């Protein structure tokens, strides 16, 4: 038997280390920062009992009680920058410590656009497979051209109809997976402007969820590797690694499932995130890896991605 193979013709996919759950304990925006450290402390005080509940829950589910729970915190550095990592990061840590909360990982939101040279947002955008409304027979104008993604059929617009044809009446939009009545959602994913593409907050939040679920690969490699940090942080956000490991003893950043403890003002964003996530096609090989690993641990994961993503809204 003779064999011949070429390296460039083969495909290899790395697998990601996984915790059981990745808990997002907070999300810092400019306006939160402006309210000062007290505001952060208040937030962490609210989060701590929920984190405990999650830990308890997973300990009960995992044989031997060895639940791997990692915590993370996201800093918004996309929509208005403020202060410096050198000042902000220690403040966050301190506020968490005061509540007995350990933040394992800290991430910059801009990492969801591009991290270590990998265009993560583009990577996810290319993997959107829009939910087809009934009577979609083949190719139709895709999200990649419009920058919008819906969960159904938009209201038809009288646009370029031929002359001498009457105007169309208004017709309602319709959700594909409706139960009797529709809840139609249409999400703006990005805007193209003179300075290039600006990704929307829900879109970056979707990338963030996929990163935490360990489901993204760039040419088969894991795109974002957490970098361990000492006690000193840079004076420029760009110099802060995309994901920083603050706790050396932390379990892996990515996890089978995610839980986010968020303010209710993020409800709409997260509805949009779920609309996006339910239309992202993840590499079947990567899904298979996760499936196998969880089966080895005798865990049953929800089949659908969006069902592995949960929230507590405070």
């Amino acid at each position, binding site marked *: 038997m003779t064999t011949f193979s070429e390296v460039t013709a083969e495909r290899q996919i790395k697998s990601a280390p996984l915790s059981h759950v990745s808990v997002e304990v907070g999300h810092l925006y400019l306006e939160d920062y402006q309210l000062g450290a007290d505001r952060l402390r208040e937030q962490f005080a609210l989060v701590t009992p929920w984190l405990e509940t999650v830990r308890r829950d997973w300990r009960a589910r995992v044989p031997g009680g060895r639940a791997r729970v990692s915590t993370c915190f996201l800093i918004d550095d996309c929509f208005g920058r403020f202060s410096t990592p050198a000042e902000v990061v220690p403040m966050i840590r301190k506020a968490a410590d005061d509540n007995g909360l350990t933040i394992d990982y800290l991430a910059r939101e801009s990492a969801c656009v591009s991290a270590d040279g990998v265009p993560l947002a583009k990577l996810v955008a290319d993997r959107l497979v829009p939910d087809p409304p009934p009577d*979609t027979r083949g190719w139709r104008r895709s999200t990649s051209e419009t920058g919008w993604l819906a969960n159904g059929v938009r209201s038809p617009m009288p646009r370029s109809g031929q002359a001498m044809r009457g105007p169309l009446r208004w017709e309602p939009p319709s959700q594909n997976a409706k139960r009797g009545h529709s809840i139609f959602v249409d999400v703006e994913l990005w805007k193209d402007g003179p300075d290039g593409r600006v990704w929307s907050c829900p879109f970056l939040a979707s990338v963030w969820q996929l990163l935490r679920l360990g489901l993204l690969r760039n040419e088969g490699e894991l795109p974002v590797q957490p970098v361990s940090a000492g006690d000193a942080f840079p004076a420029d956000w760009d110099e802060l690694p995309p994901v920083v490991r603050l706790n050396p003893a932390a379990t892996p950043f990515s996890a089978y499932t995610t839980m986010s403890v968020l303010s209710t003002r993020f409800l709409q964003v997260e509805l949009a995130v779920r609309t996006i996530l339910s239309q992202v096609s993840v590499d*079947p090989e990567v899904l298979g890896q996760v499936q196998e690993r969880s089966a080895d641990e005798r865990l049953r994961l929800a089949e659908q991605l969006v069902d592995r993503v949960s929230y507590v809204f405070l």
Partner: protein
Amino acid sequence: MLIMGEVRTGLLQNSAEVPESDLSSVLGLLAGERVRISRRPILHALSPDLLTGVDCLLPSAAQAKIRGVGTVVSRCSITGGRVVQSSSYVRVTKAETGHRLPWSHYLARPGVIEVLGKAAAADLADGFLAFGLPGEHLDVGSISDRLMDTVQAAESLDRASPFRSTQTRLRWVAASGEPGVRFVLGEGVERRVRITYEGEFSTAVLDLCEDLALHDWLLTTLLVIVERARIGAAPRAEVSARLAPAVDALLHLWMPGARIHPSLAPLWESLELAPGFTRQWQSLVERVRDQFAVNTLALLLRETNPV
């Protein structure tokens, strides 16, 4: 289970052969996914798989209303830096429920269309191979077509191909059974292939269909060029000039079965016995080469015996 697909084959719109270094950008249709390139025995580049969601009636020879929901897989390849192929296919299976499920259910099964209700594989296969009017049923061809356009519009291509040519459309259906292949040449650009294979479906079947489509296109295209050259009717120099692009661009691309899995090789071989693709190709190539030889000879004679 039935698998059905459509391969479109055409000439890459570039004046020269596209070098290996440009293939990754031309076929890089999915960020973060590599274009797979093999160099032996012929330069061949394959794009990552793309998915398109559909929810529509499936073609049925009996005009039955069969609704299917799922995703179509598409990919694009370039052979020899010259020939571009865009291929889409689906595996049709029976749904476990009679109604449509959340979209993520289908996303988790790339390339599968689930039929809601009853369907007979033979009826679907006949309906699909009938090339019905567009606009009523599943149209995998429109997806291949779109993908082809995207590739042809690549920034690095100059859109100045050495000769005009027509794309061919090869529709194929495959099911498991006693291994066999039937190839039907349509009147225009349409081709129909039925394949039965042993064991599980794998993309090796797709590779075979693409290889058949590639060689059928080469043959079709060379036949048109030779016919247009008007051998015997037009002046020799004119004939040679019309044949030249074929010699430059096509003749070395003939390699039937080069990338076929050994288990499917006998199917190609059976097509070589009848109708005998390579036999016809060889005779055409000899005809082209003879023309060049005769023309060269005529030029030499004119030089040695000036009028």
